[in-house]
């Protein structure tokens, strides 16, 4: 993969952190989806009762907290000068 010509190869600490936060924000929905789907595919009977309910709402809470943390940190950062791939 070639590097974009006019972007620095190494970033200072804050910008680097921000990139990794963005990576985490991209991962979050995928991890959530996997955690929602896999147990039901693997053991539908176990997930159907009260145990399933506890698992589901526990997962839900974790996702909300993770999303809050990520978006809060991302939203606080600088917006101007975002590279064009900053989505």
């Amino acid at each position: 993969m070639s590097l974009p010509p006019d972007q620095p190869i190494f970033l200072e600490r804050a910008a680097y952190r921000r990139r990794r936060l963005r990576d985490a924000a991209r991962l979050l929905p995928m991890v959530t989806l996997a955690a929602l789907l896999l147990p039901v595919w693997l053991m539908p009977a176990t997930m159907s009762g009260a145990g399933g309910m506890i698992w589901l709402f526990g997962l839900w809470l974790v996702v909300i907290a993770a999303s809050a943390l990520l978006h809060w940190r991302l939203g606080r950062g600088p917006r101007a000068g975002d590279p064009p791939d900053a989505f």
Partner: protein
Amino acid sequence: MPFDALVIAALIYVGSLFVVAWAADRAAARGRTGWSDRPIVYTLSLSVYCTAWTFYGAVGNASRTGLEFATIYLGPTVVLAGSWWGLRRLVRVAKMHRVTSVADLISARFGKSNTLAALITLISLTAATPYLALQLQSISLSFAAFGPGDVLPGPLELWVAGGLAVFSILFGTRNLAADERHHGVVMAIAVEAVVKLVAFVALGIWVIWGLANGPGDVIARIAARAADHEAAGWVLRADRWTALIAISAAAVVTLPRMFQVLVVEPADETPLNSAAWAFPAYLMAMSLFVLPIAVIGREMLPPDASPDLYVLHLPLSQGADGLALLVFLGGLSSATSMVIISAIALATMISNHWLVPLYLALRRAEGEDAAHASLRQPLLISRRIAILAVIAAGAIYQAVGGGQELAAMGTVAFVGMAQLLPAMLGGLLWRGATRVGAYAGIIAGALIWMGLVFLPSLGWAPGLDWGPVDPLAGAVLVSLGVNMGLFIILSLVTLPDPQERLQGLSFVHAVTPDTAAVSTPQRPDGAIRAEALLTLARRIWGGDEALHFFRAEAERQGKSGFLPDVSAGFLSRLERRLAGAVGAATAHAMLAQFAGQRPTSMAELMAVAGEAQRAQERARQLKDDSDELARTARRLQEANDRLTALSVQKDAFLGQISHELRTPMTSVRAFSELLKLPDLAPDDRTRFAGIIHEEASRLTRLLDDLLDLSVLEGGRARLSPRVVNLHDLISRAIEASSALGGAALVIDRDIPAEHLMVLTDGDRLLQVLINLIGNARKYCDAARPVLTIRVRRLAAATQIDIMDNGTGIPPDKQDLVFEKFSRLNDPARAGGAGLGLAISREVMTALGGSITYLPGHEGAAFRLQLPVRPPGLGAKSAEA
């Protein structure tokens, strides 16, 4: 609870919503959008996702299928949790193009095709009508739960539908601004969202702690119920589970009402940062108590009670009338907010993609000069008609059909709208997606949905036997699979037209289209066309706003007045702004008709791209040039300032030097006259001779200095480099300068560091040191003068810093101290001709080093820098 009290409570509640909406609209009209721009209001308005299907139907669904009810909330949770790279981008692009609806978005991306938008409108309306009917039905069912009664003349549904239509028309079609934001509606929806949540959570808490014995007991009962063979439906089916999560994730962005609140209503994408966690939290709070209510309801209510109405029957059966009323209002909120937003969103689509194009085509067919009529009124009327039509369609459907379980119609609508997802997602992520692909995918998906889901749900067609696969999951897989497959394959094999390619670039890379369209040749009829465009804009936005926009555009081009040049950039901005009112396709068609804008050709597209690149290069070059010019101008300015100051100094010096030369000469002359006197006492003679001698040496010193300087400046100085110890040199300089007199000076030295051997002309360096230390003695004005001397060896140089603790040299004079004839203080005190530092500088230059003034110290500070070896060492040492 008496039925009329219920009706009165409902009326008061609805009335207060009118007041809230009215107040928010008024505030927005005065430019105060502070409240409706808050993330909390945005998040709450998203809860229009939770309709009566959720409020009543979730419990019904849960009592039949267990945990499966939660899928409808899990899809949106996943989408919102990923909003940083999904929704944010969608909102940003939609705002850039002033998109008014989901149909507008897709049609704008695929070359502003109105036919595509009209097709999507048709699909949306088809999917939404039964869904709307369901909401109206839930309202009448919830009224019925409180027992029979008729306080209103005529059927209740008619009143409800009428009230909703009035609200939607009042607050949904008030303005025809350049954006489709409805502050009043959003605020009312937010209030309803709070009522929904409070009602449902209150009911849940009452059930868990009032009817059951806390969470432990409830979980035990859920476990028992799940183990019951009766609850066979509770076992989750992985295919259904996956399909439902997938379509609910798709629905949260494709449903017209969700697109309205999620994308069209916010000012920009920032509130998403809060909604990304707050909306999932809202959904979780709404679902937390569903299963407990379902289980307890099943245990406590008679078997013939409909699970869809457990939430009302439970408090009613226990005599908790207040709670029942709150729950009723919550259900009313769910249904009404959904109907209002859906009606507004669908009416925008119908008006922009069906009625206005039809109207324009009719006008054109009649050959009328469309420029003279206002479009504003027809547009608003078409919106109002569309709202009435949408709500009426729902009401009629409910009156005629009706009767399904609440959940069924919701799922049906979700699967239908999910058919838009491939085109939407592909359009945003893939520049290669084409209109033909979008058409094929959407049409095929919609037809399969019709045949496999929609018609069977109405009982108008038999359902397929899917064998072991769940019918819904199978239908979702087939419809979305065929949809996506056709979309991708046809996109791969077809060629997009230039308009599509421009839009594709703009959507996928989130760049404004007019950055690409830099310039097109001016046409001679520019002013006439600009005027025609102004007329067009005025007909849609009204006079003031149109004039405002045109004046701003003219100013942007550097013109005065109201008529800008009809440039490509201007046309593109005008078109996008018009699109905010009538949709991209209609705006494009209108501009083509009025401004004689020809369709873009591929050659023009390429030309535009080349032009853009050249313009970019030119701009960069211009910037470089102007930067260089600015730097040169500043250097010139500085040189000029220095020259002016020097010339003043020189004039002063000429006066000074004549004075300096004259004073000793005068005394020499006077005292030599005296010496001529014969009867002079020997003592006096000696004294007078001494004075003459002293004055003569002063003259000599002055002339020596001048000579020395001219030798140094001419580069004719002779150097005799040898190895010297800086410590010895500095000590000698201090001694020598103390002989010159001046204030007592405390010298702060770092003796060990000073023992450095340097290769240089020791005598010349000594001269500089004596001068600097002498200056400190003479000029340092501190109460206890301290002179600090520090020596340091660097890789390529040796530094000697000489710093005193006086007031130093004022910043405006720092440039001048090394110039010849420059004097800072009054000449009498200096006692020299102001040549010392000028000579020092010349000496240091001759030694290959430098002397600089160090600003920012307590007092005056100078830094001497010596090279490792003096320049031209070989030749000089031979001479020496």
